């Protein structure tokens, strides 16, 4: 039975959602009928961006392209039945992870929810172990035991990858607590979606962070929908503004332009590191794909809306235009970066395909630290009850 209405339902956007009209555009390159006018991007001149070398800017661009191509390749793998379970794609949101993670210092940490592939790549994880994890192989970053929602890399200060909506937010608050306890000059970026803001655990975390002045920045990646339920149908009041009632700083900015993401985050990150002040940031972004591969994406928004975003706010296109106008990129380089990213993603799929699965014996490893370190084990008795 086809439940789609004959007439498109008016979209129930609240007033503070990004409008569908893009900023005024000038034709600055053949492909830029639409996206942001580079001259209008004052964010490029923000100190945190003005100091970037040409190579650093290209690297930001490359990271976003890599994420896009990895996500597209993993979708094809999923459709080819190589990946089971969940796949929550980050396509359209790349500037948020890349922009935020690019500001990380040695004592800054990141934790996020299940739409975690972008953050994993943005902190520097390689594609091979990520794709192998999606395929459930023993060479995966979690040895095949976690899957799409559970990418971790403590060596890169990256703490997952979590499946329960909002469940990672107290953990992120704890990471900040540990940093403060140890006297380290760092902050935890604790990401969540617009759907997580109403979970009790998130409110509890806001209170603890503000009460104890913990260096955590709660970053709400607001893509407008929690699965199929829009912000207007989910949340009373504005999202980041709720921080006010806890006495925390807050901010809202768009996440389509990686310069803007960096400029937006920077002062809150400095405040967290230097003054141990928590904050709540809402970054407005958008996902082109459904909530996950299981979402037919035909019940809660229109194709017109998706196309409009793609046309006017695509983070890769936006930044490409900016860098082309700056003379940092040229068309040849753009093509080369894209080809390299596609190739890298293909190689990772080949790697995953060729890798072995974990064994039945592996099922009961990596559960208890003591069992994995028998020389240091102090406890006795039976630990598994098969």
């Amino acid at each position, binding site marked *: 039975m086809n439940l789609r209405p004959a007439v498109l339902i008016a979209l129930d956007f609240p007033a503070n959602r990004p409008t569908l009209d893009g900023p005024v555009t000038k034709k600055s390159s053949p492909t830029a009928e639409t996206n942001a006018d580079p001259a209008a991007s004052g964010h490029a001149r923000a100190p945190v961006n003005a100091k970037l070398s040409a190579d650093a800017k290209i690297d930001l661009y490359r990271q976003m392209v890599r994420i896009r191509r990895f996500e597209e390749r993993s979708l094809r793998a999923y459709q080819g039945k190589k990946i089971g379970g969940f796949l929550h794609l980050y396509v359209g949101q790349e500037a948020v992870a890349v922009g935020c993670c690019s500001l990380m210092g040695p004592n800054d940490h990141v934790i996020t929810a299940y739409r975690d592939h972008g953050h994993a790549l943005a902190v520097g994880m390689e594609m091979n172990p990520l794709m192998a994890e999606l395929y459930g192989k023993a060479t995966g970053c979690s040895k*095949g035991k*976690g899957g799409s929602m559970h990418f971790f890399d403590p060596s890169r200060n990256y703490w997952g990858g979590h499946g329960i909506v909002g469940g990672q937010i*107290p953990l992120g608050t704890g990471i900040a607590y*540990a940093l403060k306890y140890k006297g380290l000059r760092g902050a935890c970026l604790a990401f969540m979606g617009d759907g997580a803001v109403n979970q009790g655990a998130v409110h509890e975390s806001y209170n603890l962070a503000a009460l104890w002045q913990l260096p955590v920045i709660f970053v709400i990646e607001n893509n407008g929908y929690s699965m199929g339920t829009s912000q207007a149908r989910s949340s009373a009041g504005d999202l980041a503004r709720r921080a006010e009632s806890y006495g925390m700083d807050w901010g809202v900015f768009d996440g389509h332009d990686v310069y803007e993401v960096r400029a937006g985050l920077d002062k809150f990150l400095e405040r967290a590191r230097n003054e141990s002040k928590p904050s709540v940031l809402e970054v407005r972004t958008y996902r082109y794909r459904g909530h996950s591969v299981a979402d037919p994406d035909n019940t809660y928004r229109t194709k017109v809306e998706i196309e409009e975003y793609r046309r006017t706010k695509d983070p890769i296109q936006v930044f490409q235009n900016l860098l082309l106008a700056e003379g940092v990129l040229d068309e040849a380089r753009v093509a080369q970066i894209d080809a390299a990213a596609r190739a890298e993603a293909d190689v990772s799929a080949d790697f995953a395909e060729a890798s072995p699965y974990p064994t039945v014996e592996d099922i009961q490893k990596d559960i208890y630290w*003591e069992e994995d370190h028998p020389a240091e084990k102090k*406890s006795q*008795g039976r630990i598994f*009850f098969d």
Partner: protein
Amino acid sequence: MPLIQYREALRHAMAEELLRDPNVVIMGEEVAQFNGAYKVTEGLLEKFGPKRIVDTPISEAGFIGMGIGASMLGIRPVIELMFWSFYSVAFDQILNNAANVRYMSGGLINCPIVIRGPANGGTNVGATHSHTPEAICAAHPGIKVVCPATAYDAKGLLKSAIRDNDPVMFMENTMLYGDKGEVPDEEYLIPLGQADIKRLGTDLTIVAHGRAVLNALAAAQLLEQEHDISVEVVDLRTIRPLDEATVLASVRKTHRVLLVDENKPFCGVGAQLAYMIQDQAFDDLDAPIKRVSAVDAPSIYSPPMEIEQLPNPQRILKAALAVMN
């Protein structure tokens, strides 16, 4: 040897571990300024200061999750639940995060937390405050569960639990906090997963944990004096990992088993033990395995009825006689 209260034994364990390891932090509701709702942490704030002894707001999911997150970076939080009954508001953090993060990361992370507090009925505090969730917690691979019955066991086990690099659920009992026992001044540790035979016997094995051990010992005394039955009482001390060997050795000696605990019957600790014993010692049994659980209802308030609901010595005695006949 000094005679100290169960609560003092716990306090000494925490103080010793706080001195030994600068990463140990005690946190929970009323643990610092109030000196602990049950005076377990009395005096620790004065000795160690507010960075090490931390009062939390009433926010179990928040502060337990926060402790778990901090433990991923090497802090060793010892988090008090004023009642273990309150675990259910932090269920997701304990049983999805603490239990699973190591596994989901393929072994890259561990969470060396201790969650401790009283898990018991018997104090007329009603159904929502009288939970004994050791079996529910023990059903989750990734965590460990400890239930000490005496002051001596409490101190040695809490020290081991704090040093353990896995999450340990440590379940005490408000009715035991005032019990005195001999506890040496010198440092000692009791390993997790090691049961203790609290009373040697030959005719019947009673397996119990927590306050049920003391009730079983009282029943054993009556069984010997009034019925000439020699009862061996095995105190599990740890639920997960489980000292099956000690239980089975006792069963092979006496050939009759009575399981006693304060859990409700369905999938309580006794259910797991019964499976294990019949699976591994079937031919050693001269009678079916019986158990005494809490009467299968939410914990009743009415004081004399709550005594009847729990495995008191009279109920244990009756059940033991039934096993022997």
